[in-house]
């Protein structure tokens, strides 16, 4: 059978492969090569060695963006997962109406980042108006604004994954613990949490990579204001490419660094998941 399928390569695999090469493979390789060159239009590249990387790391805006992104990611991963987990435990007790609540909490996840950014710009500026400031008055407002926005968007999504995890726990295990007289908190700590560990791993990494790679929301909510203090990594790379002339090579070097960081996160996730699977 394999042989007869093999003859149909041009029909089954070629269209996807062509598109994949044009949209991903060639740009990816080109991107790595160009990060060691100086260029403006891809075709006029001149080899400059590591100088783009040196420029990137001595660029204060890049370092600020990196630091801002790390702080934002840590805080949003923690808050989103704590709230989502609490909501999931509230909604898996078999009470009436839980489906409606689930529907409501999940909805913000479907709205695109640009739209979300402008919704929250209105709300947050409306609140800050009472204190005579705006969202872009100080970087801390933009920072907390992004945290609130991200929570609003992702809590429902993570809640759904946690609910699926909690519902997979056999009911009799929890019942047995209850009959043995274990207090609710102990059941949560010693029974529920270990058993939903796979869901926790998934959610931690989903929130981690979503927060770390955030772009649209950042662009719409503050666009980096005031004076680029709320610029995250993805937006800083975009700015290097498109709003600074002669910085294309440095932008590409920053993008490679960004890719390496994201790949490291994914690698850690892979190792952890593998280890969990072996344990079980």
């Amino acid at each position, binding site marked *: 059978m394999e042989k007869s399928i093999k003859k149909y390569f041009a029909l*089954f695999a070629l269209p996807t492969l062509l598109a994949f090469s044009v949209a*991903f493979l060639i740009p990816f390789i080109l991107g790595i090569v160009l990060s060691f060159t100086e260029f403006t239009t891809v075709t006029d590249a001149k080899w400059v060695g590591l100088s783009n990387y040196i420029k990137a790391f001595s660029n204060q805006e890049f370092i600020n963006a990196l630091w801002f992104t790390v702080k934002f990611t840590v805080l949003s991963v923690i808050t989103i997962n704590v709230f989502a987990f609490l909501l999931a435990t509230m909604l898996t007790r078999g*009470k009436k109406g839980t489906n409606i609540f689930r529907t409501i909490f999940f909805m913000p996840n479907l709205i695109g980042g640009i739209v979300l950014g402008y919704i929250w710009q209105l709300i947050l500026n409306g609140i800050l108006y009472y204190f005579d400031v705006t969202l872009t008055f100080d970087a801390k407002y933009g920072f907390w604004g992004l945290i609130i926005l991200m929570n609003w968007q992702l809590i429902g999504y993570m809640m759904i994954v946690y609910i699926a995890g909690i519902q997979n726990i056999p009911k009799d295990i929890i019942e047995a613990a209850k009959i043995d007289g274990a207090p609710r908190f102990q059941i949560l700590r010693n029974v529920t949490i270990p058993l939903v560990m796979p869901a926790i791993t998934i959610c931690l990494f989903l929130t981690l990579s979503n927060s770390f790679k955030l772009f649209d929301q950042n662009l719409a909510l503050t666009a980096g204001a005031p004076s680029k203090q709320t610029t995250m990594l993805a937006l800083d790379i975009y700015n290097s490419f498109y709003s600074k002339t002669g910085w294309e090579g440095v932008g590409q070097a920053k993008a490679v660094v960004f890719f390496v960081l994201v790949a490291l996160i994914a690698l850690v996730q892979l190792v952890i998941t593998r280890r969990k699977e072996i344990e079980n």
Partner: protein
Amino acid sequence: METKSSRIKDSISYIVLILLSIAFLGPIFIVLMNSFKGKFYISDTPFLFPNSTTFSGLENYIGGIAKTDFMSAFGMSLFITVFSVAVIVLFTSMTAWYITRVKTKFTNMLYYVFVFSMIVPFQMVMFTMSKVANIIHLDNPIGLIFIYLGFGSGLSVFLFSGFVKSIPIEIEEAVMMDGCNPVQAFFSIVLPILKPTAITVAILNVMWVWNDYLLPDLIIGTEFKTIPIAIQYLKGGYGSIDMGAMMAMLVLAIVPIVIFYLSCQKYIIEGVVAGAVKG
């Protein structure tokens, strides 16, 4: 065992859930409310209902639609999303079947390259991809669909491959013994079995393509606008925004999503969970 204290606990958790629901729906409601206010009454008092002075009827909608050319942005978003997702589902399921059934070093490597592409952030290829697209004249809506196929193929091939592995190969062998060629076997036997994964793949890609801003902006943004691009361009050159038009366009951007969500909620939630667990 319905005791008084458990009833009190129940009511407290309901009150908490209702308050949270208000917090989750509130922002959307506030945008809706402000879309009916005159543009100078929005920024300062977004939490007040429109009254006889501030109410402006449909003025924001009419002005906003004209200003952003919303109807053509809506049409462009719909066109790009429908065709990209259709092309992605069709071609990546075929590719996934091919690389799972034909076992060579090359197909094995391909599988890992597809999986690898999933972790590469868009910024890594953003600049070079838009230049390549420019050079080979893909900077038009049809070309954009082709690029979506390429960029979306990592996750989709991965999800389809996982499912193909679980299909017993005997079914396909039996059909091909009976004289079906692989094309017939794929479309009459394999694709129908793949339907649940196809729905997951379609839902995940609809959510991505419909809301995507940066990729379409870089590829076709100078000539054509999708809804997210049209909204972003409402922000004027000096950071000034026509708040009235903005509110109205936000509402018009959210309405199709809410309709889509409420009409296939079950599939969306299942698809998102399946995508999260496997991805």
